């Protein structure tokens, strides 16, 4: 497959995905986590059919970076908001802590395993390679994706405090992983930079760069730009943010997320900006996820048979802790009962984006280990989360329709 066909394939993927989303039939088709393109990418990648080569994937790296940046920008813009409703601060904090806890548990378990597998490595606090791998896997496995919660809630026509809480918490748990990605990227000196800089300064620099460009965008949008220039301004500033991050080998996800967050906090035009940015999400996200799937090469992951079970086991443990803590502090969640645990296992676009970001920044075993772990967590989530969420919402008394019955009604209609 050459670059031309590859480009055509990506455009076709973006087209099909956009049309499906535009028809709003995604609630009934596709995977709950929204990771269908990852699966498609995996099928054409080197592990399965081998239709795309690593050289071809390199050609599309800039496109993948743009897709990642755009997704992170939207996550930043949406952080703390669910459509037009602000998420209460307590839930924001709760969701953020849940993400950080999951990241810490998965990261710690992976780090311990890697240290055991490489006992002759450097002293543990200087073992930057394993910190990057473990931290990256922790970040990639931290989320509970909103896509799955929405997907299930739409199918069973659920509404109520538990549905709302799950949506809010799944929105808020992206903050920690996306910010910490930036820190992990600085543990290995960025090849793009001329000067050696302390990792802490670089991390702060990424957050500062994102926030500064977000503020700049807010000023440009609010000052005197006619609405027809809005898209040009947003696209221009986001490309500058993404481009500068890529150029310096920093985390596109962190910079773009901080840009979106800064823009969302200071701009009065958040809704207009969101409306302008959102149509570009699907055409950019789908090719990025497709590329993420195509990059999966399990042959490059050392100790695959040990790493994946450990990662998945740690994620189950971490989400169990999160579900337990949530049930303790939230009476409505107590009603959802045990099915909440598999329900929280759903992960998808954010996880795969983090995996892809690591694969692009650290090509080879480091990046592949993070990407394959993200894919494994996504597959596990896809298998158990929809049923878990359905059962949890049913037990909480918020599901008003059975999926099968709903389908019959729709066919009859």
């Amino acid at each position, binding site marked *: 497959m050459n670059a031309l066909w590859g480009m055509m394939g990506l455009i076709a993927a973006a087209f099909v995905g956009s049309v499906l989303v535009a028809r709003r039939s995604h609630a009934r088709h596709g995977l709950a986590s929204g990771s269908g393109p990852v699966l498609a990418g995996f099928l054409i990648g080197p592990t399965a059919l081998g239709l795309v080569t690593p050289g071809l994937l390199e050609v599309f790296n800039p496109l993948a970076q743009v897709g990642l940046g755009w997704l992170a920008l939207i996550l930043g813009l949406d952080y703390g908001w669910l459509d037009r409703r602000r998420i209460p601060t307590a839930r924001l904090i709760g969701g953020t802590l849940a993400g950080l806890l999951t990241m810490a548990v998965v990261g710690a378990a992976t780090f311990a395993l890697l240290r055991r597998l490489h006992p002759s490595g450097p002293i543990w606090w200087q073992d930057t390679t394993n910190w990057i791998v473990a931290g990256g896997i922790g970040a990639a496995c931290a989320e509970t994706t909103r896509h799955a919660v929405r997907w299930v809630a739409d199918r069973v026509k659920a509404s109520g405090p538990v549905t709302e809480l799950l949506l809010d918490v799944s929105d808020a748990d992206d903050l920690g992983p996306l910010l910490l990605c930036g820190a992990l990227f600085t543990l290995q000196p960025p090849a793009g*930079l001329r000067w050696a800089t302390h990792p802490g300064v670089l991390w702060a620099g990424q957050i500062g760069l994102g926030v500064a460009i977000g503020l700049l965008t807010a000023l440009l949008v609010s000052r005197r730009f006619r609405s027809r220039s809005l898209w040009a301004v947003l696209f221009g500033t986001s490309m500058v943010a993404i481009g500068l991050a890529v150029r310096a080998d920093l985390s596109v996800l962190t910079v773009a997320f901080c840009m979106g967050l800064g823009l969302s906090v200071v701009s009065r035009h958040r809704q207009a900006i969101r409306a302008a940015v959102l149509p570009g999400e699907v055409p950019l996200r789908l090719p990025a996820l497709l590329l993420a799937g195509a990059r999966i090469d399990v042959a490059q992951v050392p100790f695959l048979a040990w790493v994946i079970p450990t990662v998945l086991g740690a994620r189950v443990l971490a989400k169990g802790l999160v579900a337990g803590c949530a049930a303790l502090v939230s009476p409505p969640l107590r009603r959802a009962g045990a099915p909440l645990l598999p329900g929280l296992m759903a992960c998808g676009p954010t996880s795969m984006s983090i995996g892809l970001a690591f694969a692009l920044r650290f090509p080879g075993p480091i990046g592949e280990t993070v990407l394959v772990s993200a894919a494994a967590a996504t597959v596990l989530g896809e298998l158990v989360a929809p049923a878990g969420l359905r059962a949890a919402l049913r037990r909480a008394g918020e599901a008003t329709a059975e999926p099968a019955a709903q389908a019959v009604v729709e066919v009859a209609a």
Partner: protein
Amino acid sequence: MSSTGESRKVNRGVELLLLGILVGLMVLASTATHEGGRSHALAALGFLLLAGTVVANVLERLGIPHLTAYLLTGMAAGPYALHLVDHSAVQDLSPINALALSLISLAGGAELRISKLISAARSLLWATLLQNVLVLLLMAGAFLALRLLLPFTADLPFTVVVGVALLWGVVAITRSPSATLGVLSQTGAKGPLATFTLAFVMASDVVVVIVLALVFTVTRPLLEPGAAFSLRAFRELGHEVIGSIALGSTLGLLLAAYLRFVGRQLVLVFVALGLVMTQVLDYLRFDWLLIFITAGFVVQNLSKQGDKFLEEIERLGEIVYVIFFATAGAHLDLPLLTQLWPAALALTLCRGGFTWFAARISSRLANDPPTLRRWGWTGLVSQAGLALGIAAKIQKEHPGYGTGFAAMAVATVALNELVGPILFKAALDRSGESAAQVDTEESTPAGAEPAR
């Protein structure tokens, strides 16, 4: 000064300040990171888009067209001035050019309505004849007269210089559909001047390709002593032109059907056409500019989807045009321009004068309305890609003098590219064809909400 005026002044100041911050960021990035690499194109893309938009907004008050502002931005930021955008980034952004040109061609074709073409047919016929034949011959004469200023002709025999002069004449009769559409898109102009210029410039692309084949055939014995007169070029041209028109008609019908029955995600369709189909058509040796002009024409005149089609192109064009012209500005070889400026200026002035002269005659013969008589020539000054394409072809076929020829073409095109849009916009404004520019800059985009 009113409070609104003062507020606008302050706002423009703030925009310039923000632009300064952006430039500072790019300078910092250039200093702190290694040069080269494909990753630089992303930041360059964003910077050119943003800086071009801001500069165009600021210079609008001076009556400078947006696309001239984009060009100036690219020149300032490009590898020959501030070096905020390096050579490799400019090169990596070249696929955008194909996308922009495909949009321009589609829009150009779709702007041509049969009814308007029929009403302007007399003017177009006379103008096409005189602006192509007379200007070509006069420019060839000017080239011969100015040959002492043109170092690359110094060692050539006179017969060869005559052949080169005729080729220069072909370069001189090229026009810029992109510049024309860019100005019309900004001004929203409607009227005889806008209609005439658009129709003439779009048709001239086809005419120039035919004239080029003719001149190549005629000058071949002059440029290559011993070469035989051959009509092979015409046979190839016939295949290319007829094939392209046939393909364009089919594409137009397909696009009209898509608009009618699907009508979604046109941006992706345009991207597929601009980035992928152009390469396929190039490979098959079809003229994709002609294909897209024909397709746009078919959508506009053989279906009811023309307005929707144009609206969608304009939405994507807002971004693509900025990048296209800013990249073109960054491409301009400024050191070369400073070397060749006396001869380039002389040739540019001659071209402008002859264009005006030919327009006066053709307007009189066609009995044009006063607006066209007075301002009809202004839209024919801009030049862009086609001229450079022809020069590159000549350089490839005749490497001896071709290098100097191409350099001179770059220098004159640069001047025409900068001056042409200003002249055309001024003419549209003065003739009253520009739509009223409703300044909604202070307006609040929909969906505003209180700050947190």
